[in-house]
């Protein structure tokens, strides 16, 4: 591996690995220095996400602070076998936003439900697999055309319905649906290591 130039993707993968280690440090020993770095990295991003979904600057700041407090208090529950640091924090931001809008919890399944049907047994190296998968996802996302990325971002990040996107882009609804479907299929293949 020596002498191989470091690509931008490898840099990003290293940052991702580091954020996972830092978040684990917060969860395991309430490491404030590690949390400061997590906060510096994610607070602006969470705020940007909330702003994109229509929160006012004051709301975005309040909810973002609430998200980061939740990260601090629940870091113990972060499991690198399930998700990367950014995915875990994304789900917290998503849930907190719904809590704030509806003043109630986002409906979700509960693994403690007596009628819950469990996942098949996770692989012993699940954490490594999750990291590899997410790195592949980032690479696949970079390979999409700007148009495809923009559509995906509208649908899955900004939470716009297909008809809202069709209205905003002046594309026929069927075109929006089929383009999104194609883009997501490509990303899924990358996540499943099937490229």
């Amino acid at each position, binding site marked *: 591996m020596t002498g191989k130039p470091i690509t931008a993707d490898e840099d*990003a993968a290293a940052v991702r690995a580091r954020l996972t280690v830092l978040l684990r440090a917060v969860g395991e020993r*309430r490491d*404030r220095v590690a949390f400061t770095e997590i*906060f*510096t990295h*994610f*607070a*602006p*991003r969470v705020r*940007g996400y909330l702003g994109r979904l229509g929160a006012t600057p004051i709301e975005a700041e309040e909810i973002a*602070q609430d998200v*980061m407090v*939740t990260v*601090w*208090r*629940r870091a113990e529950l972060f499991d690198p076998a399930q*998700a*990367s640091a*950014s*995915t875990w*924090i*994304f789900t917290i931001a*998503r*849930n907190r*936003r719904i809590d704030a*809008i*509806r003043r*109630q919890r*986002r*409906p*979700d*399944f*509960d693994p*403690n*439900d*007596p*009628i*819950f*049907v*469990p*996942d*098949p047994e996770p692989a012993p190296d699940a954490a490594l697999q999750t990291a590899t998968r*997410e790195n592949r*996802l*980032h690479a696949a*996302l970079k390979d999409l055309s700007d148009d495809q990325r923009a559509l*995906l*971002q509208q*649908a*899955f*990040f*900004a*939470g*716009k319905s297909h008809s809202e996107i069709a209205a905003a882009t002046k594309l026929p609804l069927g075109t929006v*649906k089929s383009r999104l*479907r194609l883009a*997501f299929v490509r*990303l*899924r293949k990358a*996540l499943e290591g099937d490229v």
Partner: protein
Amino acid sequence: MTQHHPTEEYLLHHAAGALPEGQALLVAAHLTFCPECRETVRQAEALGGAFLEEDAANPVDVVAALARFPFDLPPEAPQVAPAAAPISDIPLPLQPYMGARLSGIRWRTFWPGMQTVRIHTKSDPAADVSLLRLASGKGMPIHTHGGDELTIVLHGSYTDETGQYSVGDVATADPTLTHRPIADAGGHCVCFTVIEAPLKFASPWARLAERFLFR
């Protein structure tokens, strides 16, 4: 193992946090039964994480925010399973709306062999969300929809033109579909249903019944 799943669009919007409450409840109920769809939701969440990471930085006064950060707040205890899980046949996400047991539900007869009860969602009281109970071998009147109809089976099973649906299965009916679900032999069937717009019944008697009983 469930055989019929919500469309990918519903799963992705659930992951994005963009579903209205009734539909989010139905998808959450399905995810209780379906490891396959939970995996799709996890993948969509990873996509959300990737976009979060890429989002052009939005300036935050980190020093000031950290200076007033409540580091002293204690960790939130991880959730633990209740010591003795109460017997229930309703998925946990639905229980705040209808209790833990189907036997505790107070039905209203809508049509011979068919009973219903309306579910009130908190964020959107006008949303058309209900439970249906079909007696064994009985069906709903033939109907079409003004909008998408999502149904999940909570007890028993039914069959219509598109196949057989058992506990955990989800049917998505779009406005072009005219269908007649009939509960299978051997027991009644209970479904949780979310409709984007009211049903249109083909029979005038059903329309009359709807006017007096359904709302």
